[in-house]
């Protein structure tokens, strides 16, 4: 009876005995990322517990929490903090999280700031700039400023349809040091400078929403430079013919978290899943598949080689020192409070002053 045994381990006996295992609905991000989650997390969980998992397409935003929310959401830290503050997420008990493989209690094993009242951060992802190596045979882009440099690096761009990373990069292109970015973005002058920079680029930009889109556009040659999530670009590069090159300069790092919305139908099963998915082993497995950094210290030691392509994964993780020397750490507290207002300005700018081309 392996299934019952694992239910005992997971503390789900009452749930299991009371009824047939429920179906857990998880809102997550599709594409290569979801495929990896399916292999590393969802299917093994179903195998152990009998609980089946359905996914719901999700590209971020808090609208997912409105009527009949999913049981579990793979949410970015900024939105987690904002939603938790307004009481739209369930509080989580971090003491039920598994200890590290080396026996370290969860609270010490998780990096600081990754365990918040409503959430458990499970990975570090980065929004990076990538380019089509075919488009720049001679001089290649080497820094954030090149994203805005249409003279030396002409061609269409794809940017996320959101202020995230775009404002940071725009300001960074004025040589503003990384530590000053959010202080300056807190002033009208700083925001104006950032929008001025984006405005210069505006008629060359396609705006994307789903994480897989910039990968497709780069591969098809529709755009020559694009912002996107490092894991997606990594997965694309598993195909050795891929023209995509990642520019780590100015990568914007943020945590991705598991949260349970208020009104979730199967909160107990969702909690069991969080415990299952945030063990050292599962975290390391995700990192080995799609190059998102783990949030547990013990998981870092287990990052090794990609299971199929069989190369060292460490240089592809955002937090690797080689990649992180000019990383921007997304100021999640700042965004959690300001996002709605910044978004309004962003949308006003987009609607009022350009043909966005998408």
């Amino acid at each position, binding site marked *: 009876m392996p299934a019952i045994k694992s239910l005992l381990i997971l503390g789900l006996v009452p749930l299991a005995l009371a009824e047939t295992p429920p179906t857990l609905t998880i809102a997550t991000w599709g594409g290569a990322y979801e495929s990896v989650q399916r292999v590393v997390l969802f299917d093994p969980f179903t195998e152990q517990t009998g609980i089946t998992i359905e996914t719901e397409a999700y590209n971020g935003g808090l609208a997912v929490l409105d009527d009949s929310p999913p049981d579990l959401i793979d949410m970015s830290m900024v939105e987690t903090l904002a939603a938790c503050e307004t009481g739209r997420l369930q509080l989580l008990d971090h003491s039920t999280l598994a200890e590290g493989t080396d026996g370290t209690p969860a609270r010490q094993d998780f990096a600081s700031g990754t365990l918040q009242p409503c959430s458990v951060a499970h990975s570090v992802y980065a929004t990076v700039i990538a380019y089509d190596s075919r488009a720049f045979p001679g001089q290649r882009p080497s820094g954030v400023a090149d994203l805005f440099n249409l003279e030396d690096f002409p061609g269409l761009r794809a940017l996320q349809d959101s202020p995230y990373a775009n404002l940071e990069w725009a300001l960074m292109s*004025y*040589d*503003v*040091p990384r*530590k*000053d970015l*959010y*202080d*300056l*973005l*807190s*002033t009208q*002058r*700083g925001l104006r*400078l950032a929008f*001025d920079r984006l405005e210069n680029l505006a008629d060359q930009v396609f705006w994307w929403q789903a994480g897989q889109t910039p990968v497709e556009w780069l591969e098809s040659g529709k755009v020559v430079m694009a912002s996107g999530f490092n894991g997606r670009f990594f997965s694309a590069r598993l195909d050795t013919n891929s023209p995509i090159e990642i520019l780590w300069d100015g990568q914007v790092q943020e945590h991705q978290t598991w949260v349970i919305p208020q009104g979730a139908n199967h909160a107990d099963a969702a909690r069991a899943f969080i415990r299952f998915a945030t063990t050292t082993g599962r975290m390391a497995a995700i990192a080995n598949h799609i190059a998102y950094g783990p949030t547990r210290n013990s998981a870092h030691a287990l990052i090794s080689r990609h299971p199929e392509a069989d190369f060292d994964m460490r240089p592809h993780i955002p937090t690797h020192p080689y990649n992180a020397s000019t990383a921007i750490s997304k100021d999640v*507290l*700042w965004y959690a*409070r*300001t996002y709605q*207002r910044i978004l309004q300005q962003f949308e006003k700018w987009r609607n009022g002053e350009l043909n966005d081309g998408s």
Partner: protein
Amino acid sequence: MIPETIRSSVRLTAHSILGLAKVACLGALVGVVAALLANIFVAGIGWLNDVLLMSPRSRMMETDPLWIVIATLVVPTLGGLIVGLLHKGIFEGRAHGPAEVIAAVQTRRGRLPAWPALLSGLSSLVSLGSGASVGQYGPLVHLGGSVGSFGARLFRTDITVDNIAIACGVAAAISTVFNAPIAGILFAHELILRHFSLRAFAPVAIASIAGYVVANAILPQQPLFQINPTTVLYLWEYGLFLILGVCSALIAVAYMHSIFTVSRMARRIPLPSALKPAVAGAVLGLTALWVPEILGIGSETLRFAFIDGAYGHWELLLVLVLKLLATAWCLGMGFSGGVFSPSLVIGSLFGALFGTLVGTWVGATSELVVYAVCGMVAVTAPVIGAPLTAVIIIFELTGNYALTIAALASVALASLVASLLVGRSFFDRQLQQRGLDLSGGRSKALLVSRTIDSLINNRHVALERNVSVARACTAMGEAMVAEAYLVDDQGRYQGKVTLQALIEKPAEQPAQTFKVVNDFVIDAHTSLWEAMQMLKHFVGESVPVVGRNHQLEGIVFESDLIRAYLEIMAEMRREEYASD
């Protein structure tokens, strides 16, 4: 048998090694403590600014605009009130600052008192935390100096080591907050010690390095600014930097004069002085509703000045003038804080303005940031009176040699021009207004700061004023002196007679007929400097000292005055040149 000369030199070496170890330990200890306190101070300001909605980041994060308006009006006002009340606990009714540190060291009076230092530190923290437009480095210099002075007292050192310890604290504070240890050492020498001795260099360097290590190991300080690699495009631009320097000096002069003018005006405002900072805060808050840039230290404004296109011409001028006025207003009305950080902001805005104008007239030049940095340094250096420090800070923060030389070019004339118009620094001018003139050099300052009080003695012959020549001669002969002083029945000084003048005069005539014609007297509060000036035209043994109502209190021998002068000069030379 070891010859006595070798034994004594071994003893001497052991003694100096011990002394050296003691001073080095003192330097390290002062360095670490000053660095920790400086870190806490800076972190405290940041925390207060965030909590009290004074920093742009916290204002942006506040979702209710009403709270921002309320905070902008209330926080500086309340802060001013607290500052005013804290200053009531200080004898002078104002915060102590770098001027006190300089005065203590230059006059070899040592000893910065702990209680005013504590109150001044607190009031600066409140001022800066509540958004007053003042600087943070002045308070830090005083804090560091006070830690040094306190350390010296713990180690029971002599006055020379006390001065060195003060310099150690200052060096550590600057080294920590700028993350620039060489600048820390230079600053302590340029502004505080004003001489260069190996004896002081070693502990000051140790303290500065200790500050740097603490800053990096325990509480890393963010650099004041970071500038990406940039270079000076054309050699003729160095000529422009010189001109920029001269213009910046005029801005610095205007800045310093505004502060002094507001201080003078503030004294005439018929309000209790404890309330004046609160009034200043209220006016500042009201203005900040319109131009929030004038609140606080202004790091964001400084950063924007480096960006081409962040301000228009008129905006640069407007923010520059308002920042200058706001700082003069806050400091003049009694907020506690420094003049350094605002001059960085004012200077960089001015440099940016100069650079933009030059760009419009001449065409292609180096990046705007080069001009902004030059302006920043050229306004700051004359204000703090430390041109080399200002240049080295640029070098240590940017590691950019071309930029450093550009800064040097702009500082070259700036300090000289400003010193002709105001004085060596803002602090020297402050001290001058308080009666301590350092412009004549340290020897004059030392002599001015000592009175002849301790040299007065009673070994004189006082005679009743109607005494006869014969009796006067006898009295002098018995006392073996050649001078006697005539006093009336109430002991009031009436004149001096000398043996030479009375000899062979008719014995029964009153002695006062023959008293010295070009006689002069001094009082006990006369400074050594004044006494030495008077002595230039003096012939004789001693000078009478008179008190209230012209009462004869005693005399000072000319030889005692000269001995005191020589001792002070010798002490000073020992501090400045000796190596042990």
